[in-house]
């Protein structure tokens, strides 16, 4: 998991405890803030705005891929394989004569779909389990958090590989396998927020006014904790895209004919030193995408918790 869990877990490096640090030893974090103020602070952050631009660009490219791509990304031309970048094909052709630029453009679709869907799924599972654990506490909390620990301690890539082999290759298996091993961070984040917010002044005040616990959780605690989850989520989409590309790179991601960046890199790595353009352009696409989400995630976090900048 090494390379990957790190990138997905670091979201919490300031908002949340570093991964693995046990809840008992965690300081409180999320605070009540006005959304307008958050937006203002976010937009004042140059990197965050750049990130937002990159992410928007990614979404637009994915949406309008058929209009933007100069060629059919699946069309092979065996008489025109491994062409250097040039006039006919701006970024060259691969070993089957397919247009690289078109494949990179269509690759945005897989990245967006898998990145968003897997993190959305992870957040869904994580929020439910985290809220349950935080709400019920005691035995429920222990059981749920041990389950979270199990999935958390599992190496992400290997867990994902095993699940994909069981389910077969494809987009859905990749999404599910990534989500299964990403949710524990979310539930820990939410749970610890709930635990800390539980003792916050405004909650104590609500309680003093006679509000029941469930109402406190739903109306006060979750909305205030969710901010941390959102910052994490934005950040993690980048991590999920990297993880998805890594799976393809290792030959277990989506099917190889699908225009996907990790697939392109996997096919290109043996051409290192001979046809370097085959791996440099998809790499650039991945880096820009991940950076976009990282900047947005960072910006969100800082906007939510400005005291550290």
């Amino acid at each position, binding site marked *: 998991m090494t390379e990957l869990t790190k990138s997905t877990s670091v979201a919490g490096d300031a908002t949340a405890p570093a991964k693995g640090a046990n809840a008992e030893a965690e300081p409180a974090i999320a605070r009540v803030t006005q959304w307008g103020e958050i937006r203002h602070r976010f937009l004042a952050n140059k990197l965050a705005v750049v990130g937002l631009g990159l992410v928007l660009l990614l979404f637009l490219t994915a949406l309008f891929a058929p209009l933007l791509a100069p060629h059919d990304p699946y069309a092979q031309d065996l008489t025109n394989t491994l062409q250097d970048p040039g006039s006919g094909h701006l970024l060259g052709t691969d070993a089957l004569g397919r247009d690289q630029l078109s494949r990179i453009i269509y690759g945005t679709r897989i990245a967006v779909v898998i990145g968003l869907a897997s993190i959305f799924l992870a957040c869904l599972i994580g929020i439910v389990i985290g809220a349950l654990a935080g709400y019920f506490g005691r035995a429920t909390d222990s059981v749920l958090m041990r389950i979270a620990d199990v999935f958390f301690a599992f190496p992400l890539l290997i867990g994902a590989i095993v699940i994909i082999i069981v389910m077969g290759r494809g987009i859905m298996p990749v999404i599910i396998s990534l989500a299964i091993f990403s949710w524990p961070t979310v539930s820990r984040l939410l749970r610890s927020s709930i635990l800390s917010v539980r003792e916050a002044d405004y909650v104590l005040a609500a309680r003093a006014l006679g509000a029941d616990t469930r109402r406190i959780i739903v109306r006060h605690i979750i909305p205030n904790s969710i901010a941390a989850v959102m910052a994490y989520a934005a950040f993690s989409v980048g991590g999920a895209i990297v993880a998805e590309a890594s799976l393809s790179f290792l030959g277990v991601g989506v099917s190889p*004919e699908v225009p996907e960046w990790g697939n392109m890199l996997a096919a290109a790595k043996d051409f290192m030193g001979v046809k370097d353009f085959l791996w440099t352009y998809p790499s650039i696409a991945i880096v820009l995408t991940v950076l976009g989400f990282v900047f947005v995630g960072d910006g969100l976090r800082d906007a939510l918790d400005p005291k550290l900048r």
Partner: protein
Amino acid sequence: MRGATSAKWVVGAVIVAMAATACGGGDDSKDSAGKGGGTFRLGITEPTAIDPYNAQESEGALVAHNLFTGLYSATPDGKLKPELAEAVQTSDDGKTWTFKIKSGTKFSNGEVVDAEAFIRGWTRVVAKESASDVAYPFDGINGYKELNGGTATPFAGLSAPDANTLKVELSAADFEFDKKTVHQAFSPVPKAAGPASNKAYNDAPIGNGPFKMEGSWQHNKSITLVRNDDYGFEKAKLDKVEISILNAANGATLEYQGFQSGQFDWARMPTPQQSVAKAKYEPKKQWVEADTSGINYLVAFNETAPLNNPDARKAISYAIDRDAIAKGVFQGLQKPATSILPPSFADTYQDGVCTSCVKQDKDKAKEYAAKGGLKPGTVLDFGYNTGGGHEEWVQAVAQQLKDVLGLEVKLNGKPFKEALAQQQTKGTSGLWRSAWGADYPTPDNFLFPLLDSGSINPDESGKALGDNRGRYNNPKFDELITQARGTKDPAARAKLYQEAEKLAVDTEQAVIPLWKRTQYRLAATDKFTNVKMDFFEDPNLAEIAAK
């Protein structure tokens, strides 16, 4: 079988097949004697075993063949060369073989090599406790079932009438049994070997070959061989062979890099780098090229729709443009195959026996598709194993099938074991990419395992446990194979094998040949003379000499 071995498939070298015309490479003419001595260095991936009881892929064969000398060896072009077998007699029914073994040769620990040493070695491979993967070539010998099944300990079919005579009794006629003995599993072993579970011997086998081990096998690091000065035949010239063990994930790349930086004297290259390497090293005469005894082909599942009739299978074969893929995807470094038997078997090779393989013919493809019920839109499963570098060309084939026949091709990449499980399952349909390499130089080693109904070997659930996973089943073909095995005259026998091949591969298109197995190596011919690729695709260490 070494065609698509563990070591190779991980590497990413596209396994695309063929046979030995052993060209290129060594500048053998002038000073092939060399001055002797020297250390030859090469890299291989970690073998499964080097002990002949379980040595299997070409890496293991490389070490075992240099540590042991058996009855016969194979020349690069698949001819039999007598080693310890001084004379041989075959009974008229083809069931009894008597080998006269050269007397006076020794193992490197001083034990004599006699008939008992062979019986010991062969028994050790077949014994149940050994669970050897290379016991199958012995299955024609009387008593194999009992020994392998654990119900009897001596190998009933083997006997030694005197110290230097080995008598082998077979359960059915086989006039090519001698050819099987080139496999390293048929090596003699000394008493010191003990059972197959003897770990010390597994890692430092004592043999009677041109080289002996220096120290033990350092797993994942190295194996070092030194010349055996007591060798019973012409001694090796090299002092030493240093074999580095490389990571299987990237073996070919590492070998190539090692050669370029002068660390290795022999190397494979990753497929994408081959054309560049060829341009650089061929002018220096450091390029070794051979069509070896293997084949790349597509298994067609003969029992299940849509490929359950010869016309549908011919349509597939005609629709594939082998030339375009060879040029476009393989950069001209692979050659289309038109037969299932490799050209290295000169006696039986029939160029163009698979009529549909010779050239892409879209009209014929459509014509046969119509006849065979392969309508446009038909779903065709096309499986391949991942991690073998097959991703690219299978996509090209799939595209051609879509374009020409309008089929809906479903590519299905799986890791090896799941791939195998799916091929074995009853009811699997469509195509599966496969490769086959010869264990020993006989056509039977292709035709019987791949096409004979005796090699389907279904279990109760209908899983095909044998190598005929396409489940081609034709009594007429089986009859031809049995007949060929029982035919003493080599020319008549070859004819029967040819007839069988034509029936299965042309008339009925049971399988779809794709590419020959062409192998490329780099060899440091500036430092060594007489460097060649042997039958097992390894360097001929025993004959190489330093310049």
